[in-house]
């Protein structure tokens, strides 16, 4: 049962990420990306990571992709230009790099996660507590350091957006 749900969610994720890349309307791209994140949240949820599933929806679907949609509508981009074959060498190199990266990811995944069955069904229940303990315990420095980085980014954005008075 869990395996079938996983397969459906993973299949949807693959299909809609292809749509997100290939379709020429930016709005459809963003919407299919929303569905990809939904499928990923479903995978997190059946793996017992409810917290990650909820955060996935809140952060990506609820905030970041809405901003994407917002920008696309403000700029009123109708249809994306099909990229011509003006740079065949670059296209070839890009394809090689993408294939290599994909192969590396698949290899790493099969080495690290040898058997889906042992990992999927309810790996760790109630993951809010372990994640909270890790963030504010053993990984406190990294956690705080990232927030310093984010504050620096916000200050930078405010500096760039300020009016010249």
């Amino acid at each position, binding site marked *: 049962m869990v395996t079938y749900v996983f397969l459906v969610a993973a299949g949807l994720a693959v299909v809609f990420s292809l749509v997100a890349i290939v379709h020429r309307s930016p709005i459809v791209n963003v919407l299919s990306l929303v569905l990809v994140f939904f499928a990923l949240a479903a995978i997190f949820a059946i793996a017992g990571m409810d917290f990650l599933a909820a955060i996935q929806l809140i952060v990506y679907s609820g905030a970041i992709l*809405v901003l994407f949609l917002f920008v696309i509508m403000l700029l009123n981009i109708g249809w994306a230009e099909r990229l011509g074959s003006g740079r065949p060498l670059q296209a070839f190199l890009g394809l090689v790099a993408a294939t290599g990266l994909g192969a590396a990811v698949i290899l790493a995944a099969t080495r690290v996660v040898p058997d889906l069955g042992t990992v999927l069904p309810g790996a760790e229940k109630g993951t809010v507590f372990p994640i909270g303990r890790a963030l504010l315990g053993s990984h406190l420095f990294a956690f705080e350091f990232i927030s310093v980085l984010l504050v620096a980014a916000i200050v930078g954005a405010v500096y760039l957006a300020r009016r010249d008075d």
Partner: protein
Amino acid sequence: MWADALVIGIKLAVGIAVLMTMVPIMVWVERRGSALIQDRLGPNRVGPMGLLQPVVDAVKLITKENLVPVGVNRFLYLLAPTVALLVAVSTFIAIPFGKGDGLSLFGYLVKGLIVAPDLNIGILYVLAIASLGVYSTVLAGWASNNKYSLLGGIRASAQTISYELAMTISVVGVLMTSSSLRLDDVVAHQEGAWLWVIPRWNVFPQLIGAITFMVAAFAETNRLPFDLPEAEAELVAGYHTEYSSMKFAAFFMSEYVHMTVSAALVTVLFFGGWELPYVGVIGSGWTAAMCSLAVFAFKVALILWFFVWVRWTLPRFRFDQLMAIGWKAMVPLSVLNFILVGVLIASGMI
């Protein structure tokens, strides 16, 4: 297994029925309430005190011409009202609206009939689903191929993103005191009273958080004084300008369902949920479940009346004022609440 499936089915059916019944009731309350506030009579022709007016309205909306304008993106145009209603209804599932421990039906222990079953992320589920509601307004605005709709949709997305932040931060204070994300734990933590006088509701130590949460809830539900996405004086009707008949009704219903869910959340987070002050829970088993349900419904009704009261009392803000309030008042105030709660917890006062 089958009993669990039956319980889930019953809960879904009852939840949707309750929400869908709340819509005509709230429409009636809103129209009669606005009349009361503005010293008019309001609808009083159909049925006693105009109580059947919403039925007539529904018949009117159903029998109206179902129009799809030329030049719209048909798929997204029809998707938007669907998403609006779907999101509004599915947030309600995770809200506990009564005490549901130890209920048994024909000797079988029923779990999750009133409290959402074993959802350890509780409030995060509600926030996650509610944050998707903005897609309906944005898509409706864009797919309608109308500049007023588009402006309404863009306003809606900016407004929702801005106020979501204040809303989430004010929720954090509540979660810190109850140290759990489960909404039934949040309610259980608010039992009893301080010095036998003040109920241990979160609204008393966290008044600022309660205020920012309520204001953000007004903004998230696009209610006056924050209904800029559909400001009729400047944008015709905003994102739903091009929608007619039941497609318009879907947006209309989703607004009232959102309102009900927000009122239920305010009750659970800040006003002690189903807890009757000084009395606690009456009886046990089904008695407790029904009494707590009644208390919860009463509190939600009061807060819903507050929503109506505010709508017909305050004028609409300008859009720059809305943004200024969101970023320069609500976010700092909710952070202040967050810090105050931290200090109170550290000093052992709550």
